[in-house]
C-alpha cells in the first residue's frame, strides 16, 4: 500500500498511518518560540526547566498538536482536518526521541469522512499526547 492516500476510497478501517518522528530538537523548539510563541525558558532551556521541577525543557502543547496535524497531512496531503482534539497526558520532552502513530477508526465513504486516533509516545513507549481527528477527503 502507498504511504499516502488521495481519496476516501484509498482508506480502510484499521489502516495504520505511517509513523512520524517529530523534530523535538532544542533548535526546532527555539525556532517555534521565535516565530510563533512559547519561547520561555521552560521550553527553550533544559536547566531552567529543571529548576521549575520538570525533567527537562518541554515541547509546547500547541506544537505537539501541530505535529499531529502534520502527520495527517503527510499521509493524506489533500485532507481537510475538520476537527482535532488533543489530550496532553504528560510532557513531551525536548531533545528526546518521540514517535507518532495513528490508526483509522471509522470511514464514511459517502461523506468522505475519516476518523483517526493518534498517539505520541516517548522512547519508553509511554503515551504523552493522545488525539482524535476527523478529516475530509475527496470522494472521487
Amino acid at each position: 500500500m502507498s504511504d499516502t492516500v488521495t481519496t476516501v476510497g484509498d482508506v480502510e478501517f484499521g489502516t495504520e498511518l505511517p509513523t512520524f518522528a517529530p523534530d523535538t530538537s532544542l533548535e526546532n523548539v527555539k525556532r517555534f518560540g521565535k516565530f510563533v510563541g512559547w519561547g520561555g525558558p521552560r521550553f527553550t532551556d533544559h536547566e531552567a526547566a529543571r529548576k521549575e521541577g520538570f525533567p527537562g525543557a518541554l515541547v509546547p502543547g500547541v506544537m505537539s498538536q501541530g505535529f499531529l496535524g502534520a502527520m495527517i497531512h503527510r499521509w493524506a496531503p489533500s485532507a481537510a482536518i475538520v476537527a482535532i482534539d488533543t489530550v496532553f497526558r504528560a510532557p513531551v520532552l525536548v531533545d528526546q526521541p518521540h514517535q507518532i502513530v495513528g490508526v483509522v477508526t471509522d470511514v464514511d465513504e459517502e461523506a468522505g469522512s475519516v476518523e483517526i486516533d493518534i498517539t505520541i509516545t516517548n522512547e519508553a513507549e509511554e503515551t504523552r499526547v493522545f488525539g482524535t481527528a476527523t478529516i475530509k477527503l475527496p470522494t472521487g
Partner: protein
Amino acid sequence: METDIEELRSGFLNEEFDEVAFDIDGQRFAEYALSCGEQAPRFTDPAHADFQAPPTFVSTLVGGRSLPVDFPRLGGVGMDAGKGVEWMAPIRAGVTLTGKSHLHDIYTKTGRSGRMIFLVTRMELFDEEGVHVANADTRTVIRERPSE
C-alpha cells in the same frame, strides 16, 4: 453532578467574556507549519495559490483572558490539559480575525488523588465578513488540594 459544579455551569457557561482581534501573519503560520513538520506547500509556501494556515494554528491564538473576570478561584494548580480545534474555512494571510471567548464546558473527574475540575474555554473565530471560520478550545484541569 456536584452542586458547586452545577452552580458554576449555570452562572458562567456560554457567556462571552473576551473579544480580541488577531492580524494573521503568513510568515508566522508558515514557520509554525515548517517547525511542526508540515510538507504541504499550501501551508508552507507563501507563493502557493492556496496558501493558508494549518487548521491547528488557531490554537496559538491567545485571547486577553482565559476565564471570566468574576470566575471564582477554585484552589489547586491549573494545567493545560488539551486543545481542540474545529475548522470551518481556510484562514488566509493578511486577514484580521475576531476571537470571542466563552466557557463551553465545566465537568469533573475523580481519581485516587481526588477531584479534578476541567474548564473548557472556547474561542470562536470570525473573519472580517463575520464568517465563523474556526473554534479553538483550551481544556484546563485544576487538581483540587486534598484539604478542599
